[in-house]
């Protein structure tokens, strides 16, 4: 494995806790893969049999909503890993990963990964630390959502302007926190749009009076005998009061 690749592995957040020796052991087990734009590294529902470290290029992490439309829940690039959680919990892929340009990635199969964990305590410990970092990161997500929920309740949408829902941190295809944040973001945007629509509607409505209906209703009320008598009585009383 060439030094440039080893350097990339060292920069990956997921492996940041590993010693050089442990990194070299990982690199020795990995295979270099190349993908063209539009290629799928994995699809939702696939069995989880490997994970990838992106060396070059970018991918979108996608899932589908209730109507079957594609939702992009994240975008990942060099230094990020995808699919490592599924490897550990042995569940099918919860999201797909599609190449947005030419992608180079290191693939580590399940067997190779478990073999490493089995024989290298330093690798195991480093990976565990990586997961622990991720857990902390998810907690930050939750704190953010709490903060934004409070802001939304108060009608303060300013965070939409100066925060970015897509993150360049690792932890992608299984990352429910990222999905939550993304869904939350889209919810707040829609609430904001609805609120603005309502405001505009009210402004437009104030410009419309049906003059014909106005005239008709006025005539219906004033055309009665009761009204004629009332108008006369009111007139008399006003005059009388003015005179005093």
């Amino acid at each position, binding site marked *: 494995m060439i030094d440039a690749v080893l350097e990339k592995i060292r920069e990956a957040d997921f492996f940041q806790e590993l010693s050089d020796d442990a990194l070299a052991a990982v690199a020795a087990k990995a295979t270099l893969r190349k993908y063209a734009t539009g290629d799928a590294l994995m699809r939702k529902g696939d069995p989880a049999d490997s994970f990838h470290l992106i060396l070059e290029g970018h991918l979108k992490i996608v899932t589908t909503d209730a109507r079957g439309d594609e939702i992009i829940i994240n975008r990942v690039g060099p230094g990020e890993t995808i699919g490592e959680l599924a490897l550990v919990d042995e569940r099918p892929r919860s999201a797909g990963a599609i190449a947005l340009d030419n992608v180079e990635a290191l693939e580590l199969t399940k067997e190779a990964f478990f073999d490493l964990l089995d024989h290298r305590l330093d690798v195991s410990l480093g990976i565990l630390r990586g997961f622990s970092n991720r857990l902390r990161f998810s907690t930050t997500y939750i704190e953010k959502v709490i903060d934004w929920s409070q802001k939304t309740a108060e*009608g303060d949408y300013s965070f939409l302007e100066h925060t970015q829902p897509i993150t360049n941190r690792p932890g992608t295809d299984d990352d429910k926190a990222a999905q939550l944040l993304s869904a939350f973001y889209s919810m707040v945007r829609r609430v904001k749009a609805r609120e603005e629509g309502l405001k505009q509607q009210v402004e437009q409505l*104030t410009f419309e009076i*049906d003059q014909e209906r106005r005239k008709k*209703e006025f005539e219906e*009320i*004033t055309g009665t005998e009761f009204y004629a008598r009332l108008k006369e009585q009111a007139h008399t*009383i006003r005059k009388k009061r003015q005179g005093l």
Partner: protein
Amino acid sequence: MSEGKIVSIHSFRGGTGKSNTTANLAAQIAMMGRRVGVVDTDIQSPGIHVLFGLDDQKMGKTLNDFLHGAATIREVGYSVGEHPAEGQGRAQLKGKQIFLFPSSIKGGEISKILKEGIDFNVLNEGLQTAISEFDLDYLFIDTHPGLNEETLLSIATSDVLIVILRPDNQDLQGTAVTVDIARSLDVPNLLLMVNKALPKHDASAIKAEIESQFDAPVTSVLPLSFDMAENASRDLFSLSYPDHEWSQALKNVVPFILNAK
């Protein structure tokens, strides 16, 4: 006959906050040391007594009794200043000159009046007597929404008519007819007030637009307030929360009433 002014508060549709506005305006003017009366001519659905903390048990003679000749106006007038109800807002009315002329909340009494109808001269005489006997500066009338006969009677006798509307098309349409009726009945002071404007809505744009539509002054644009909705029936909001934006906007209406000719 006294120089006290009759101020009717009206809205074309229900739910505009009419009774709340009436009670709070009357309370604000009473707090300034003026002598104020509040008549509930919303005979079909009376409610303003609740805002002053007057319940069924405490309610004595009513406007209905006066209208069938079973009580004098003096007997109907209930001194709010002598019987301040619970609530930190209402408590401030202690010792103030504010009198409530409630409508009966008994079903039989309500249907009786509606069946018999109200004689304009009798109602007018009652209002004039209330002004002279209680030496009132202002007599507020809380009317029934819409333009039925008893509401037309109230409008016909008013010196000041405040029409409350929400900034929506249906209210605007109904207000147009009310404005035309008020002009036909020679009401000397016609004022508009917008309530329940959406938060962050451009109040000055609403004011300008409605003033140009009706050629009448918009006294104030009051915001839609959940604080207000939550506390409305428990107390007089503008007295208990004087710094709230709704209360501040309500107080903007007061000089229009005081300056009415």
